[in-house]
């Protein structure tokens, strides 16, 4: 009997084969798109079936496989346990949806030969990271994933902005991998035992554990988009074709979260309570700053990328809570927090894929990513705008959709904080809870803006005039995701129970069995404390909305009237004078912007009698980029400028340098106590 892990490895191998095939078929342009996406769709669905069989049968017993490749005498170890099963499910489902979407969307690609070989390779890389069970395989797969996604980022490399995005992504990805390399190196210890099993058994010293935590925050955090390591994400994710953006935002960030959970919760053993404070701090910071950046953004895909940063912040806050509870031996609360994190990761992969698909459909239809040039698309793309609206409602965590459930679970975990013994955590957790609430509210505002400016109002440019709905493949992918957003929202108990093997294996505890609750309610701790029933909310919303529609249509006039609506203060017919995204964000910018973005507004009024128009100037700074990255770049420039002289020394001087360095080393050796 061949093990499940081996079956999935065959899946990975066939993905790689598809990548090679894509290179071959692209000699004749235009023929390969359907074939490649069809194959990746088939492989992903097959992998999902294998995983589903596992979940239904026995999700706990790990399934392993060893390949005789990689480092000599070590080989490549692969393992499929509850945690990797869950994340593989996220990856393969995201891959299947992106392939389905790509079946239609890919035909608009001007240079398919730059996308098709790397798309299956990217999927294969992500699968391998999650399957890997030793440090070498893990790092190799991680780097493979980074590089194949980088190749997808620079598909349209002739555009200056994309080339820059690719460069920054490459630098940050290398930096992240370096941090991971050091973290896993520390874990493998002086004995150099690279399998995760040995690391798990070794149990690192507190000092090593501290370094590993810091390095994992740098390594996995930079891939996931933790502030202040997020800078590459809003540049790179939108630069790729939209279905790849969906994969990068919806799925690859989850792979980073997986890496973090695997090392911190699984390999590192018992956490210390203060390590949770660090995770909580960066999680909260990421959530709020991510969504503030998103609010300031007027490029639709970049807005979505910034919103990804916010969601990663939410996930990391939940992970920090899980760490805090785990360190204090509060297993049921820890299970609740970890479930919230995983549930949110799953939800985010649903609705962020959906939203990026929608943005891709808009981009194909209009050729525009700038929201200030869109508007009124609801009339031209009714189906796309409907599913986009579903995605927006879900990501704004409104009931009865799935985003609400996971955020609600996170808040339930926050509410467990009074039981924590440490005062630092007692103060910190509610504060972070406040940040979480703030970010949820801002996210709602952000997506009101995203939907309102893009789809409502009237067209702001001629690009919109001839837009029409996306093709049936793209719409199918988006509708499937929208339905899942709703289903996960009204049947959350199913998901929570499905996650219980993961929390059992990582924390040793689980949330109460939800499907045993009456009427599909979910209860995080006990029914006496709090419970939520998504189905009830959904039924209530459906009934009240239908009743409202009925009442309006029954008792109001049936006639369709077109009359002067409230014009938001503009009376003339110029579409450009509508409410814009920038003006929508102005109140929030005025509250937070002076501090976070050093935003300054200046109104230049003409002198009396002058005929020139008044001007409104807005200046916004990316403070993190300017205070953290620019100085590093300048220091590097300075150093390389000055070290450049070393390239042009005489042979004797080079010898002298070597000699002097040797002497210094010998002196160190001689004087070392």
């Amino acid at each position, binding site marked *: 009997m061949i093990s499940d892990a081996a079956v999935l490895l065959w899946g990975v191998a066939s993905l790689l084969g598809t990548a090679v095939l894509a290179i071959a078929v692209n000699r004749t342009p235009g023929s390969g798109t359907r074939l490649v996406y069809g194959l990746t769709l088939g492989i992903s669905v097959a992998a999902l079936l294998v995983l589903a069989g596992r979940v239904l049968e026995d999700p706990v017993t790990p399934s392993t496989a060893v390949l005789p490749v990689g480092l000599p005498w070590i080989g490549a170890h692969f393992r499929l346990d509850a945690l990797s099963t869950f994340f593989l499910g996220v990856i393969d489902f995201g891959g299947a949806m992106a392939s389905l979407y790509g079946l239609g969307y890919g035909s608009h690609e001007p240079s398919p030969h730059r996308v098709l070989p790397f798309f299956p390779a990217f999927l294969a890389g992500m699968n391998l990271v999650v399957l890997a069970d030793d440090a070498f395989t893990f790092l190799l797969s991680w780097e493979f994933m980074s590089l194949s996604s980088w190749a997808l980022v620079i598909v349209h490399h002739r555009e200056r902005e994309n080339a820059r995005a690719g460069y920054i992504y490459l630098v940050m990805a290398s930096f992240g991998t370096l941090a991971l390399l050091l973290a896993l190196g520390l874990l493998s210890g002086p004995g150099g035992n690279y399998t995760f099993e040995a690391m798990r058994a070794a149990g690192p010293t507190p000092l090593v554990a501290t370094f590993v935590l810091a390095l994992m925050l740098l390594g996995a955090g930079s891939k996931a988009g933790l502030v202040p390591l997020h800078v590459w994400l809003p540049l790179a994710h939108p630069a790729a074709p939209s279905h790849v953006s969906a994969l990068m935002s919806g799925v690859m960030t989850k792979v980073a979260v997986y890496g973090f959970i695997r090392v911190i919760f699984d390999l590192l053993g018992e956490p210390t309570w203060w390590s949770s404070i660090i995770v909580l701090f960066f999680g909260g910071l990421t959530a709020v700053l991510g969504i503030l950046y998103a609010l300031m953004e007027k490029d639709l895909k970049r807005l979505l990328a910034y919103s990804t940063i916010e969601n990663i912040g939410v996930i990391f806050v939940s992970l920090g809570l899980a760490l805090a509870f785990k360190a204090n031996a509060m297993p049921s609360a820890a299970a609740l927090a970890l479930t919230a994190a995983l549930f949110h990761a799953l939800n985010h992969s649903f609705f962020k894929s959906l939203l990026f698909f929608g943005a891709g459909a808009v981009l194909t239809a209009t050729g525009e990513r700038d929201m200030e040039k869109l508007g009124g698309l609801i009339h031209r793309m009714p189906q796309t705008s409907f599913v986009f609206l579903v995605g927006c409602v879900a990501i704004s965590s409104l009931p009865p959709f799935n985003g609400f459930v996971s955020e609600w679970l996170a808040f339930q975990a926050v509410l467990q904080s009074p039981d924590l013994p440490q005062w630092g955590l007692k103060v910190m957790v509610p504060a972070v809870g406040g940040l979480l609430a703030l970010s949820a509210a801002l996210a709602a505002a952000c997506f009101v803006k995203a939907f309102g400016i893009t789809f409502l109002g009237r067209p702001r440019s001629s690009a919109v005039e001839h837009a029409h709905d996306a093709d049936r493949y793209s719409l199918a992918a988006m509708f499937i995701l929208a339905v899942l957003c709703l289903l996960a929202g009204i049947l959350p108990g199913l998901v929570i129970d499905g996650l219980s093997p993961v929390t059992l294996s990582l924390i040793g505890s689980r949330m109460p069995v939800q499907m045993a609750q009456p009427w599909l309610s979910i209860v995080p701790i006990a029914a006496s404390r709090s419970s939520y029933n998504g189905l009830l909310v959904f039924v209530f919303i459906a009934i009240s909305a239908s009743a409202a529609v009925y009442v309006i249509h029954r008792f109001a006039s049936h006639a369709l009237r077109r009359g002067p609506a409230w014009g938001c203060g503009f009376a003339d017919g110029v579409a450009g004078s509508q409410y814009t995204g920038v003006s929508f964000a102005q109140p929030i910018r005025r509250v937070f912007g002076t501090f976070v973005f050093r935003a300054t507004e200046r109104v230049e009024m003409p002198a009396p009698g002058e005929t020139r128009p008044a001007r409104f100037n807005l200046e916004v700074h990316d403070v993190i980029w300017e205070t953290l990255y620019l100085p590093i770049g300048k220091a590097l420039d300075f150093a390389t400028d000055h070290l450049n002289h070393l390239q*042009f020394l*005489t042979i*004797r001087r080079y*010898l002298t340098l070597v*000699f002097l360095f040797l*002497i210094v080393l*010998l002196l160190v*050796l*001689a004087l070392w106590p």
Partner: protein
Amino acid sequence: MNGLTFDIAHLLAGGLVLVSFMMLYQDRLFALINVFAVHAIVLALSVAWQAYIQDAHHLYVTAAIALIFKAIVIPVGLHRIIQRLGIHRDIETAVGIGPTMLAGIGLVALSMVLMLRVTSGADPLAREDLAFALSIILLGLLVMVTRRNAVSQVVGFMSLENGLVLAATGAKGMPLVVEISVAFSILIAFIVIGVFLFRIRERFDSVDVGALDDYRGEHR
């Protein structure tokens, strides 16, 4: 081991360091090569003595190689090269003799301090030997660094290799293979650099490595 054998081994190794100092002092090429020949002879004696006291006959081969190649063949070859190139009148130290000698003394002190500390558990003869060998290596490097002329850099490099041979023979039980390979690496280096010298001669009409810098468009 009685006192006399130890003293003689010590004397020969110490003599090698002394000859290294003499090499530092030379500012004419012929003199430098002659001193190098002396260096190789002392090395051959020292290796032979080691062969005698360790009762390791294969070390005699090493001693013979040192004597024939390094004390005779290579110096004669270098003499020829210098005559052919017509550079025997060049004075070519880059740093003054005084500071070089002071630096040399410092290097010897450093290697003594270091080696006696690091090898505290070892056999006293091997310890002294290693300390002397490290001094010779460092002095050889110093010769290379303080000379402009390619020929004298080659000589510095070979005296450095002599130090390596001394270290290898001082440690008991070093297999012959290694010594032959060390000796041959020196020979090969000599041949390669000799060819290199002639090419320099053809192109730049000088063996001063400064000419290479001119060729690369740089100036010291």
